[in-house]
């Protein structure tokens, strides 16, 4: 990526404030309101997190139709268990992505999904215009930092972490794919995450 990070642009290029549109809300606050049964707050929370929930699930499942289904399940689960979110344990977004990722992985591991994927592969390969824009925007704004941090990992750390997280493989499967002993894979997943954590910082999220 040769272009400059969007964040390096001059000050006057920041969003033009005005017009009484609601400011971007904090996911933690919204989730507290959602926990009290506030459907409107859930709508705002949806706007804030749905592209990432859907994108993450889609990345793991690689099938837009199934991703849509699982994203719906995950988001409804967020609504259902909102009262169980414990802010002492971390940010609302990370809690939400944990739910989304778990759902995606459960789906990807089920045998049933495998056959469904085969059937649907032919039907579901058409990208909507939304995808094109989403890819570009996320490319500009967000990928850079994550990529840079991932590039700082050793090859084995990176492979171990991304095969598990982005593709939903179990660690024995990752070990098999990488031709690496199980204990090594476990260790690389952990020290890879330690290094990523320190590259990205923790406790900050929208």
């Amino acid at each position, binding site marked *: 990526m040769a272009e400059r990070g969007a964040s390096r642009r001059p000050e006057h290029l920041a*969003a033009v404030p005005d017009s009484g549109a609601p400011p971007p809300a904090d996911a933690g606050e919204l989730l507290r309101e959602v926990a009290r049964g506030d459907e409107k707050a859930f709508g705002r929370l949806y*706007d804030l997190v*749905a592209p990432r929930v859907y994108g993450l699930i889609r*990345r793991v499942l690689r099938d837009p139709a199934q991703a849509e289904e699982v994203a719906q399940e995950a988001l409804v689960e967020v609504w259902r268990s909102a009262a169980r979110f414990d802010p002492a*344990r971390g940010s609302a977004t*990370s809690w939400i992505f*944990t739910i989304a990722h778990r759902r995606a992985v459960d789906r990807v591991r089920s045998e049933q999904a495998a056959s469904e994927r085969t059937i649907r592969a032919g039907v579901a390969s058409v990208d909507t215009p939304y995808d094109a824009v989403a890819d570009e925007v*996320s490319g500009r704004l967000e990928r850079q930092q994550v*990529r840079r941090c991932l590039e700082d990992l050793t090859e084995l750390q990176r492979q171990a972490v991304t095969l598990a997280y982005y593709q939903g493989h179990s660690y024995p499967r990752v070990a098999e794919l990488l031709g690496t002993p199980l204990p090594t894979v476990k260790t690389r997943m952990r020290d890879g995450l330690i290094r990523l954590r320190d590259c990205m910082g923790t*406790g900050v999220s929208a």
Partner: protein
Amino acid sequence: MTTEIHTLVGAYVLDAVDDIERASFERHLRECDSCRLEVDEFRETTAQMAHDTWSVPPPWLRDNVMSEISRTRQAPPVIPEAPAAPPVRGVSRRRWLVSAAAVVVAAAGAGSAVYVVQDQRVRDQRQIAEAARVDQARVRQILAAPDVVLNEQPVSSGGRVTVASSRLHNAGVVLLAADAAPAGRVYQLWTIRGGGDPVNAGVLADGQSADVVVVEGLPGASDVAVSLEPPGGSAQPTSTPVADVKLT
């Protein structure tokens, strides 16, 4: 923290364990505060990896989810078994610094100075990322709107400009992905409404040819235009626009 089961912490956070391992690990977590802290921090880390993946969901997903939640009962809160950990909010930064220091020490002890060397660069990256994050939230909100409308136009000097606008949010996102501007020229964005004069919507830096800009109040404008201007931008376009996106 050194027990056998704890070696699964990375795999656990990445959801790379099976159900039995997950259950054993969670039992282990209930007995180990420092392990819980490690898990919580790793979860924030993987959440950042999720930022890397986003994709605009199909607009009807919102309606489907909203109608399903209106029929779905919420679960009651769980009473915590152990005394609650101190709240993260407000102290998270300090906590992070402490853990970063610990990592530096640990890495130095293991004969590696990698983390120490990277530290400054890491801090810079984080500042950049945080600055962008506020905008990102708004960008996401607009792109996820159920009524988002996309308009796209090639840039005559190469590349293209895409405008996503949402009446619901009374805002739009302009995405410029153009070829490099000629020497001594920068890209400048404009909005035009009701036949009036173009209004500046942002000037790109010298050498910058791609950007994402949130324009509040965009719906109602008739055009988003892009022109090449002297560095720093102009009060009014001084050349024929290289792109003019009609907002319909």
